[in-house]
């Protein structure tokens, strides 16, 4: 009996020792080496990977998407891993919309790859299939195919934005990538654990443009029809809200598919610039609208140069000179201006400088300094030659007239919002300067109304319900070897409605067969306005149509009498007083002209600059009390032009 007890005792001791060993080892594994094993296990079943942040979207002013980023997939298949090749092949054919023959051929290889890209909806059913592997990537797509593409821009070869808003606002649109821990099960299938996101990706900000897709569509359609039917080599249309500077629609089209746009294609505008010559004459009180001018019955020899009118006349009033677009009349009247006055007015309306719109590579146009003018430059400029403007610059300048004389910065972006909807930045209309007085602006608007409704050159733009004001421009078209015979650029700049403009539109057509703006660009303007009135667009304040209240800007811009600085200077961005308020001239002697001008502008004064260098003294002198808006002449030591 003792032997079995002994044996049992021995087994129990052995088992106890074995258990002790196991427990000891377990303690070693858990307590001593536990951390190292845990790390190794974690590494085996988890993986850290970058989580790409989605690029922000681009929307129109009403939230209609113009560019979005969405996940897309490529599909890889290991045929030997499929559970049921026939059934799975049928699913692939149906979901990926690929011909059966192509899928069958692909599945005969060891690895089949379908690049797609396929949407989430397409690959949803494939996710649980064994042997099917999905590769996710983010892709930019444009829901309104082709609409406003020049404006929005395109990706370059490296996938980065190459042009347009996509490029200009790349920093805002690009988000910050995050990182995540991915779990892997025994089969090797990966899962993103919700707790594994150790750095959340921050999506890029969304841009809300000033563009209205409805109006954009109308404008692009009208431009395409005009180019096709006239026919013309190309064209541009810009529509702006004059009070805010918001660009509501902008379209460019060329038959040769070149990438020219309303931001960069500067052209000699011709007669649309006559209005700014008129502005200078009225501002300096050198002509009145009813003053008569002898227009030489259509042919005028001047300084060895012959100037002709398309509609020969005898006597025309200043107003009729604009209405009939008389070259002879405007050249004769412009002779009363000196070069500085003429230059200053064109510069005050923004010609020769970029508008500052948020678009890469904007053209500043061409406006030469007066000392580089030839003997006939003043006459040429009066008619809109020897100056080059972009359609956007022209729209901005006409918007200043609509806006009672205040030039406003144009803008393409209304709002920037974070992914959660928080507004990061909102556009505030910003005046650049007052170019002319409100009285002069009103007189010019009357002239523009006459162009359309008093038998002028813009009759084809007339609407019967609401008045349109505008000015035609037909300029000879420059080619590589000078002006091309019989080839013109036709443009029409308009204000709608005439009494309290809500829109400013510039239509420019390259080489239309009919030549004249009156029969090409003006009818396009009418077509756009008619379609706009019949549309559901919200860019027109229909309730306000017919009201004639003055334009109101968020910040008051003082009324000033026009003065004639030698070169154009910037009007204070933030005026500090009213028109009739007095200010003390700051002492700017010893400062550079640039710094002196800044100080004077800050005090609500204008700077009369004749040369660059160090300021010796001013007139009126520092410390004198003068009226707000007075021009302070700067005398400069060692000045250079």
């Amino acid at each position, binding site marked *: 009996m003792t032997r079995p007890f002994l044996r049992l005792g021995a087994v129990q001791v052995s088992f106890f020792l074995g258990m002790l060993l196991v427990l000891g080892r377990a303690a070693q594994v858990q307590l001593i080496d536990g951390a190292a094993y845990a790390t190794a296990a974690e590494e085996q079943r988890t993986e850290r990977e970058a989580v790409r942040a989605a690029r922000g979207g681009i929307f129109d002013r009403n939230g209609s998407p113009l560019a979005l980023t969405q996940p897309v997939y490529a599909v890889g298949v290991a045929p030997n891993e499929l559970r049921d090749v026939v059934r799975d092949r049928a699913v692939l054919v149906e979901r990926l919309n690929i011909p059966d023959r192509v899928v069958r051929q692909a599945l005969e290889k060891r690895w089949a790859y379908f690049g797609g890209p396929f949407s989430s909806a397409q690959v949803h059913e494939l996710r649980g299939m064994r042997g099917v592997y999905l590769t996710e990537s983010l892709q930019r797509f444009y829901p*309104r195919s082709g609409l406003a593409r020049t404006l929005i821009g395109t990706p370059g070869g490296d996938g980065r934005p190459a042009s347009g808003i996509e490029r200009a606002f790349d920093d805002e649109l690009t988000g910050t990538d995050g990182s995540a821990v991915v779990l892997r099960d025994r089969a090797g299938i990966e*899962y993103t654990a919700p707790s594994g996101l150790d750095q959340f990706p921050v999506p890029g900000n969304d841009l809300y443009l000033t563009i209205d897709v409805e109006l954009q*569509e*109308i404008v692009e359609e009208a431009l395409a029809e005009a180019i096709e039917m006239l026919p013309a080599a190309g064209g541009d249309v810009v529509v702006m809200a004059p009070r805010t500077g918001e660009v509501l629609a902008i379209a460019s089209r060329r038959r040769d598919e070149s990438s020219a746009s309303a931001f960069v294609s500067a052209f000699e505008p011709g007669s649309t610039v006559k209005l700014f010559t008129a502005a200078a004459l009225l501002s300096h009180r050198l002509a009145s609208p009813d003053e008569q001018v002898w227009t030489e019955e259509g042919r005028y020899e001047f300084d060895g140069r012959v100037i002709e009118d398309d509609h020969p006349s005898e006597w025309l009033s200043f107003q009729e000179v604009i209405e009939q677009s008389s070259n002879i009349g405007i050249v004769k009247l412009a002779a009363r201006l000196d070069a500085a006055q003429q230059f200053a007015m064109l510069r005050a309306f923004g010609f020769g400088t970029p508008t500052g719109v948020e678009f890469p590579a904007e053209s500043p146009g061409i406006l030469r300094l007066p000392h580089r003018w030839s003997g006939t430059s003043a006459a040429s400029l009066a008619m809109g030659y020897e100056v080059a403007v972009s359609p956007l610059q022209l729209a901005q300048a006409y918007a200043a007239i609509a806006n009672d004389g205040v030039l406003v910065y144009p803008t393409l972006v209304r709002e920037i919002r974070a992914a959660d909807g928080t507004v990061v930045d909102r556009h505030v209309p910003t005046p650049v300067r007052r170019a002319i007085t409100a009285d002069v602006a009103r007189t010019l608007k009357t002239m523009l109304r006459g162009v359309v409704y008093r038998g002028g050159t813009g009759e084809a733009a007339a609407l019967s*319900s*609401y008045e349109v004001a505008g000015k035609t421009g037909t300029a000879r078209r420059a080619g590589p070897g000078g002006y091309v015979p019989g080839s013109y650029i036709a443009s029409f700049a308009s204000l709608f409605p005439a009494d309290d403009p809500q829109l400013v539109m510039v239509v420019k057509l390259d080489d239309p067969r009919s030549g004249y703006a009156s029969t090409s660009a003006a009818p396009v303007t009418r077509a756009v306005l008619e379609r706009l009135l*019949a549309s559901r667009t919200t860019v027109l304040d229909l309730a306000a149509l017919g*009201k004639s209240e003055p334009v109101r800007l968020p910040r008051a811009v003082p009324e000033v009498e026009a003065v004639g600085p030698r070169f154009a200077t910037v009007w204070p961005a933030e005026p500090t007083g009213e028109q009739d308020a007095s200010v003390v001239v700051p002492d700017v002697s010893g400062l550079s002209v640039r710094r002196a001008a800044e100080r004077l502008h800050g005090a609500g004064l204008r700077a009369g600059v004749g040369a660059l260098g160090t300021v010796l003294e001013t007139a009126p002198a520092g410390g004198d009390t003068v009226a707000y808006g007075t021009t302070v002449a700067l005398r400069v030591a060692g000045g250079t032009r």
Partner: protein
Amino acid sequence: MGVWLVFGLGVLLLVVARQTSGFVAVRELNDRRSERAALESERASLQQTIRESQSRRVLVPRAESLGLREPADSEIRILRVPGTPER
């Protein structure tokens, strides 16, 4: 000893069950995520179809084929909101 064995097995089962339920939950979450992505993608596609159908490029030719046309400006009357001043 049997008790210890049962206890050991129980703990083991608990660990396995917990891990399995974790993976099941993650798998389900992933399924819901992909379902949501699929639905969002479908919604985007449908919205695009609606926008395309509402565009002038599609609507105008269709309206013209039905004998309709766009009104001239003289045929448009904008009704004044009561209380706004007359012109």
